[in-house]
C-alpha cells in the first residue's frame, strides 16, 4: 500500500501549492506532479555495458493572475524551497503581458470517469532478469546470420510512474503507468562495408513484450538485407513506405494539425477542416482510451477527458488536435489533446494516432510496383511545416517487377506533404502499434528520388 500513501502525499503537496499560490494573489492555478523509477540495462558483445537505475520526481506549477500566466517546475520538494518556488512563479506571471485567451478550462468540462485502461503493469523486473533478456536478444541476433560481426548492443528498460494533476477549479486526477522495452542493434559487414539496423518491442504490460529471440532475429533480418546497398539514378517513381516509416508520415500530420501550428499560421493544413485531404479509403483515428496503448491516459494535460475521434474520415479532415487555448484561438472546443510536460504550459498533440488498415497485403502492394522504391529508413529533418515541403535522406530497396531487387542508400526522397497525402494509392493490412503513432504499409503514387 506504499503506492497509495505516496499518492496521498503528492496530493497534499499539490493542494498545498494551490493554496499558497492563491495567498500570493493568483486567481487560478494548476499543479502537475510526476514521479517514476527506471531501470535500464545495456549489454554489448555478450557482456554488460551499462546499468542505470534512478528514481525521480518533479512538479510543475502554472499560475494565473487574471490573464497573465507563467509556468515553472522543480525537483526540489523541500518546504522552504517550495515557498520560494511559488513566489518566483507568481513574480514571473506578473512580468508577462495579458493574454485575453489564457485560462483554465471551464468547470464542468473535466474528466469525471477514470476507467482502468490497462496502462499500468506492477511487474518489477530484477536487474539480472533484464540483463538476461538483453543478452538473449543480442545472442539471437548473432546466431541468426554469420554476417553479424559487431553490435551496438541490446537494451532492456523498465519504468513505472505516476501523474497527478490538480487545479483551483477542484479537479483532481491521477493515474499510474508503466513501460517495458527491449531492443537490439546488430552490425553486419561484408567486403562492401558495414550496415546497422535495429528492432525493438515496447509494451505497457511485460507479458506482452515480444520474445528476445524474435526481436534479435528480426533485427538481424533487417540489418543483413542492407548489405551491398548502392545509389540509384535520379528519377520520379512510386514509393512504398514500410509500416515502421509510414508512421512518420502520420507524425508530420499530427504536427500540422496541432492547434498551435494552425493559429500561428505555421501549418500547411490551415483552413482545411472539412475538406478532402486524402483519397476516400484513408481513415485516421486518435484514440486516447485505447486499452493498453502507449499514448493512452484517462485525462489530458488539462484534466479534460480523452476519447476516440476520427481525425480523417474517408479522406476528409474531421478534426484538429486542440487544447483549450489553441481551440479558443481557432474558435473551437478542446479535443482533449492537451499534451504537457511538467512545468510547461500545455500544447496539443496526439494520443494513440493511427491509420485504419487497408485491404491489400503488403506483398501485394509490392507486387503492384514495376519500378520504384521501398523505403525502410529515413534520416534528416527536411520537413517544412509551413509549406509542407518534404525532402529526407532515405534507404531501403529498389523494386523491379514487384520484387525487392537490391538495397539502396544515400538517396533522398522529396515531395510536398499536401500532395503526398493526396497521392496515397494503397494501404496495407499490417497495422501494429509500436509507439503512440502507427501506420500500416503505405504506397504513394510518385515522389522525386535524388541519387546518381
Amino acid at each position, binding site marked *: 500500500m506504499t503506492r497509495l500513501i505516496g499518492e496521498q502525499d503528492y496530493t497534499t503537496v499539490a493542494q498545498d501549492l494551490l493554496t499558497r499560490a492563491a495567498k500570493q494573489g493568483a486567481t487560478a492555478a494548476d499543479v502537475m506532479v510526476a514521479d517514476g523509477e527506471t531501470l535500464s540495462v545495456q549489454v554489448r558483445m555478450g557482456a554488460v555495458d551499462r546499468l542505470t537505475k534512478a528514481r525521480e520526481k518533479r512538479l510543475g506549477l502554472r499560475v494565473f493572475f487574471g490573464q497573465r500566466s507563467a509556468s515553472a517546475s522543480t525537483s526540489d520538494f523541500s518546504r522552504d524551497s517550495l515557498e520560494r518556488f511559488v513566489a518566483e512563479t507568481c513574480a514571473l506571471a506578473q512580468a508577462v503581458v495579458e493574454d485575453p485567451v489564457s485560462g483554465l478550462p471551464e468547470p464542468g468540462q473535466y474528466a469525471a470517469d477514470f476507467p482502468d485502461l490497462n496502462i499500468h503493469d506492477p511487474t518489477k523486473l530484477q536487474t539480472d532478469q533484464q540483463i538476461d533478456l538483453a543478452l538473449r536478444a543480442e545472442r539471437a541476433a548473432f546466431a541468426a546470420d554469420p554476417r553479424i560481426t559487431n553490435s551496438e548492443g541490446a537494451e532492456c528498460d523498465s519504468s513505472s510512474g505516476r501523474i497527478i494533476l490538480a487545479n483551483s477549479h477542484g479537479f483532481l486526477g491521477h493515474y499510474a503507468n508503466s513501460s517495458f522495452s527491449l531492443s537490439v542493434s546488430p552490425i553486419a559487414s561484408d567486403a562492401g562495408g558495414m550496415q546497422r539496423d535495429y528492432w525493438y518491442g515496447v509494451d505497457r504490460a511485460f507479458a506482452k513484450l515480444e520474445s528476445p529471440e524474435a526481436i534479435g532475429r528480426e533485427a538481424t533480418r533487417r540489418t543483413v538485407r542492407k548489405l551491398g546497398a548502392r545509389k540509384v539514378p535520379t528519377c520520379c517513381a512510386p514509393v512504398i513506405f514500410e509500416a515502421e516509416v509510414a508512421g512518420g508520415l502520420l507524425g508530420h500530420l499530427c504536427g500540422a494539425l496541432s492547434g498551435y501550428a494552425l493559429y500561428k499560421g505555421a501549418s500547411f493544413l490551415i483552413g482545411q477542416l472539412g475538406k478532402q485531404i486524402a483519397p476516400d479509403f484513408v481513415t485516421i483515428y486518435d484514440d486516447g482510451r485505447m486499452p493498453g496503448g502507449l499514448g493512452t491516459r484517462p485525462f489530458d494535460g488539462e484534466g479534460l477527458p480523452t476519447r476516440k475521434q476520427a481525425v480523417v474520415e474517408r479522406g476528409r479532415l474531421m478534426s484538429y488536435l486542440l487544447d483549450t487555448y489553441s481551440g479558443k484561438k481557432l474558435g473551437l472546443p478542446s479535443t482533449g489533446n492537451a499534451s504537457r510536460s511538467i512545468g510547461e504550459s500545455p500544447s496539443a498533440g496526439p494520443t494513440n494516432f493511427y491509420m485504419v488498415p487497408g485491404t491489400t497485403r503488403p506483398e501485394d502492394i509490392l507486387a503492384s510496383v514495376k519500378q520504384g522504391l521501398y523505403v525502410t529508413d529515413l534520416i534528416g529533418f527536411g520537413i517544412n511545416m509551413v509549406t509542407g515541403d518534404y525532402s529526407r535522406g532515405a534507404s531501403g530497396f529498389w523494386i523491379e517487377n514487384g520484387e525487392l531487387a537490391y538495397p539502396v542508400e544515400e538517396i533522398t526522397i*522529396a515531395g510536398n506533404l499536401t500532395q503526398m497525402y493526396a497521392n496515397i494509392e494503397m494501404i496495407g493490412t499490417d497495422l501494429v502499434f509500436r509507439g503512440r503513432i502507427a501506420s500500416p504499409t503505405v504506397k504513394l503514387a510518385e515522389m522525386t528520388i535524388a541519387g*546518381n
Partner: protein
Amino acid sequence: MTKDDSGVPERFGMTDREIEQALGRVKVPAVDYADLYFEYCQSESVSMEEGIVKRATKSIGQGVGVRATVGEKTGFAYSDELTPKDLNIAADTARYIADSGRGTEPVPVTQRPAVARDLYPHDRTDIEVATRDRVTLLNAIDVEARRYDPRIKNVMASYNTEYKVMLVATSDGLMVGDIQPLSRLQVTCIAEENGNRQIGTFGGGGRIGLEYFQQDRRYLQFAREAARGAILNLSAVDAPAGVMPVVLGGGWPGILLHEAIGHGLEADFNRKKTSAFSNLVGKQVASEVCTIVDDGTLPFRRGSLNVDDEGTPTSRTVLIERGILRGYITDKLNARLMGIPVTGNGRRESYQSVVLPRMTNTFMLAGESDPQDIIKSVKKGLYAVSFGGGQVDITNGKFVFSASEAYLIEDGQITKPVKGATLIGSGPEILKQVSMVGHDLKLDEGIGTCGKEGQSVPVGVGLPTIRIDEITVGGTKA
C-alpha cells in the same frame, strides 16, 4: 556568487568529508574509475507571438549522478535528493556493476586546480536580469521584424537562459567545479503573399548574458535576418535533384563537418569499431586543403567549457590535418580503454545522464581561396548559406542536412533562391570532394544542439566558404 563558489561542496549541502566517503564507497578495488557529478541548473524562457510576450517558464533542477566503471562496463545511478543517505544509495547502485561489497576507505579529493582561464566570466546579475528586460527586448524584435516588410504576418521569438553550477569529484583525486551560463535568442518570421506562406528563422547566443544581445542592438539584427529569410523564400524556386557541385557559405554550414566527420571520430564508436572511420587514423580522408579541429577553448562560445564533465580542461584537438586523419575525441573511459590521450570531450546532458565523448566547437581552418572565386568556379550548382538540421548514420557514414537558405549558381553567378534542398553524402568520401577552401573562416551564431543517445548538449561549428565538387542534392525538380 563568484566563480570560486562552484568548486565548493557546501553549495550542494555536502561537506568534503561526505563526498570523499561516498566516493570511497563506490571505488572498491575492482572499480577502475568512479565519479560524483553534482549539478544545480536553473533555466528561464520567455516567448513572444502575435506581438505579446505571453509565455514565461522557469525550471529548477538539481541532483547528483554517481558512476563507476569496470573495464568496459559502467554502473550509473542518480538522485534528485542531495543528502548523504541518497548519495550512498546511488553509490551502492552504481557499484553493483563491480559485483563487490562497498568500500570503506574515503577517497581523498585534494586536487582543486585553480581555473587557469575563464572562458565565460560573467556577473551573476547579468544572468538574473529581470524578466521585464527580456520582455522589452522581445517586443522590440516584433516591431522591427514587421517594419522590415509588410508581408511579415507573424513573428515568434524566444529567449532562453540557463545557469548551471556543476561540481565533479573523481576517484583520481580531483574536485573541480564550474559555473556555465548559456543564453539563446531565436526569432521566427512567417511571410505571406498571395496565399504563399514561407518561414524564416535566425538565432544565436553563447555562454553569455543579456548584454551580448543588447550590444549594438544586435537583437534587432536577429529580427531583420529572420524577416529577410522569410521574404526571400517567397520567391524561392524548387530545389534541383541530383549530383552537382555545391558551394557552402561560412559559419553554420559547418554542420557538415559535425555530421560528416565529427560523430564518426568520437572515440566510443571507434573503440567499438562501429564507425565508418574506424582504423583510418593516418589515412587520407579529406583533400589536402582540409584541416579540421575540435576546440572547446574559445571564449564565450556555445560549445566551449572551462572543464569537461569529468573535470578535464577542454583543449584544441586536430582531427584532420591537411587531409590526414589524426585522431579521436575522448572521454576518460574511452581514452583509457584505447590507450590514447584524454582530450577533454567527456560531456553529459545533466546529472541524469552518463558521460559520452562529444564534440565542442568543430570547424575547418581557413584556406587560401577568395570566396568570390569559389562561386565563379561553378558552372551549374548550388550555393547553400544556412541550414536547418542534420543527421548521420555513423556505421555507414551516410549523412544528410537540409538547407534553409540556398541559391542556384549559374555560370559562376548566384541567381535564384531555392527551397527544400537536402544534401546527402558519405562521411569518409565527402571531404575528398572539397577542392577549394576560402580565407573567410566564420564560426556559427551559437544555435547548435547535438543529440546522441538521447542526450542534448550545446555545440558550435564553423566553416570558411568551401567548394564540394560532387554531392547529391535532394530536391523535387528531377
